[in-house]
């Protein structure tokens, strides 16, 4: 509920620190308010008692010996700086006045004593025009009918309250500092480890599968969390490694017998004089080569789908690569009566596995060549934006049906335009997708407005310049 009070980007440490400080300041202020209110009340009743007491004492002195006694007392210096004594006649005329500077300037009440009986007292609070301090004045009618006034300001009480308030603020400040100690603990053992874990998970998201959560100083709960998470990651890593080695083993298990069969068949082919046998074994050799290729393609596709494909990354110019591919397919296009054009105006450096990407594009071209009838056109195009490169293969074939558009990238799915005469088992496009995904790219396909289909490979650009985001690149 407090989260809305804070700016979005304020870190949890500052939020918590700010919240704690505000709470401490608030509670200290509340304590001080209550304490000063109570103190003021107590001090004012003490002040009344003091005034009544002193008034009584001066009245006794006066009644004993008259004005002279009072004057003697003051002459002896037995008075305080914030206390005033005056004696007025019953008509209000001032007979005696001893008012120190601290008590000067107050308007003493005139007719307060009208209804007062002798030895009765009355207390009045008098405000000053300029000062904050109040004067608490008491009066008593003396035996001879004159009136004794005694006044005392609350300056001393106020100073006292002020003093205590300062001390309380200091205590509040010190306790706020103590209250921040748990915050330090929280930051060190909870927040910092959580932030470190966040960094690790970010690395994981970027594809650095070696990253692990580390929480050496964290609270036991976080340590348990990190260790459970790491165990899960280790298991995934182990599975990936297992898959890789299983792939390698399977390749070995299938390729070696294929090699044995091929060797024997080749021997047979070369040593027979029978034309029919020769032709049969030649077909057999072709089939074995195709089967070996298929095994490799399936393994590559599987590895790519499970993120276990080993990429051999190098910096290459995509434009140059497309020029080579165009060159390679040109003769085949001519033979088929296809118009094969390349649209790659700008050079485009990229970091990728040259053989794999070559294979992916070649597969799209194979597809386009197989489905485009004689007289048609196939276009290989390259376009780049700031953050990605697109390689497009357009054809003027029959295009894709609505069902094809969603399923065509799946394994063993052939387009609806496929016939018994078009080669392939529907694995080519899934290989394309697996290779492109392994590079962090995307594949798309769509029908063109006029005629035919358009397949595309989008690859992210990894530029060689230092990355603009400083967080990335630590690994």
């Amino acid at each position, binding site marked *: 509920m407090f989260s809305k009070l804070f700016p979005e980007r304020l870190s949890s440490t500052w939020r918590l620190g700010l919240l704690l400080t505000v709470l401490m300041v608030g509670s200290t202020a509340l304590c001080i308010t209550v304490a000063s209110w109570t103190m003021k009340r107590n001090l004012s009743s003490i002040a009344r008692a003091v005034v009544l007491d002193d008034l009584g004492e001066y009245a006794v002195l006066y009644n004993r010996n008259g004005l002279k006694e009072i004057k003697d007392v003051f002459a002896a210096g037995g008075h305080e700086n914030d206390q005033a004594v005056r004696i007025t006649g019953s008509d209000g005329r001032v007979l005696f006045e001893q008012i120190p500077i601290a008590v000067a300037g107050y308007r003493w009440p005139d007719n307060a004593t009208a209804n007062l009986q002798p030895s009765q007292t009355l207390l009045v609070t008098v405000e000053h025009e300029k000062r904050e301090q109040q004067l608490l004045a008491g009066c008593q009618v003396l035996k001879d009918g004159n009136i004794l006034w005694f006044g005392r300001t609350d300056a001393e009480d106020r100073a006292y309250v002020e003093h205590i308030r300062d001390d309380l603020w200091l205590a509040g400040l010190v306790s706020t500092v103590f209250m921040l100690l748990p915050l330090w603990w929280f930051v060190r053992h909870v927040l910092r480890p959580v932030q470190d874990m966040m960094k690790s998970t970010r690395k994981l998201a970027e594809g650095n599968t070696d990253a692990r959560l580390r929480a050496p100083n964290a609270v036991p709960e976080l340590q348990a969390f990190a260790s459970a998470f790491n165990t899960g990651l280790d298991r995934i890593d182990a599975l990936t490694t297992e898959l890789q080695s299983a792939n390698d083993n399977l*390749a070995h298990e299938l*390729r070696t017998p294929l090699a044995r069969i091929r060797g024997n068949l080749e021997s047979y082919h070369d040593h027979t004089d029978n034309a029919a046998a020769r032709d049969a074994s030649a077909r057999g050799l072709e089939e074995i080569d195709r089967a070996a290729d298929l095994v490799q393609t399936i393994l590559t596709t599987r590895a790519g789908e499970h993120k276990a494909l080993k990429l051999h990354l190098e910096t290459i110019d995509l434009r140059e690569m497309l020029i080579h591919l165009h060159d390679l397919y040109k003769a085949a296009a001519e033979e088929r009566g296809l118009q094969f054009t390349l649209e790659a105006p700008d050079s485009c450096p990229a970091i990728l596995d040259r053989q794999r990407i070559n*294979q992916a594009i070649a597969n799209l071209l194979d597809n386009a060549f197989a489905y485009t009838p004689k007289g048609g056109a196939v276009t290989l195009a390259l376009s780049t934006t700031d953050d990605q490169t697109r390689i497009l293969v357009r054809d003027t074939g029959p295009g894709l049906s609505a069902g094809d558009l969603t399923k065509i990238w799946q394994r063993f799915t052939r387009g609806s335009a496929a016939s018994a005469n078009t080669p392939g088992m529907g694995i080519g496009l899934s290989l394309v997708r697996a290779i492109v995904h392994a590079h962090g790219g995307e594949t798309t396909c769509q029908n063109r407005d006029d005629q035919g289909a358009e397949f595309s490979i989008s690859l992210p650009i990894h530029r060689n310049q230092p990355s603009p985001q400083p967080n990335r690149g630590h690994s």
Partner: protein
Amino acid sequence: MHLLLVEDDSELARQTSLWLNEAGHTCTWKEKGNAALTVLSTEAFDAMILDVGLPDMDGFTVVEEMRKRGFGLPVLFLTARDNVTDRVRGLKAGGDDYVTKPFAMEELLARLEALQRRSGLTPMTPPSRTVGKWTLDPIKRRLVCRDERVELQPREWTLLEVMLANEGRILTKKFLLEKVWDIHFDPGTNVVDAMICRLRRKIDSTGSLSQLQTVRGKGYVLKAFP
């Protein structure tokens, strides 16, 4: 050539040594890496055919070990794993070339001979600079016959050079794709076939049997005619 064959599959080893013998080479066969390393110090070989997946140690380790011991003979890897990473690893370990299973015998021989040429064991005989009636002009990359001239495109030229360097040997599609286009997979489209046809049209003279022949199931061969 006297060759050392290290292969744990006995059937494949039997075939290979048979083929090598037929081609006029002799070979010693070892099943394990350690045995191969031992025999290296007792026998002199011209080249080594080494399987990557051996029972006791992998082929990469064998090569590293033998290079450490100072044996410099050329090594041709034979492997069931077909990917660039492994190929690069093999070459880094000190191997010289790489053949993936299943392979054609002629391809193995072509590669072995290329290794031998490179290592200088046989004197370099410059490959023939004539094809039929044509004389090759390597500077302008064209074929010349008296007043006739045929221009060759860069890849056609490279294809012809590779075929000439292995004259009389049947070269597989895979081998040509790798040597001419640096491509390590077989595209579904008959790109090599189309290219060979195009080159054939350029070099063949009308009326005579083509010099550049396609051998079904095996590959392509450039035959020299007197």
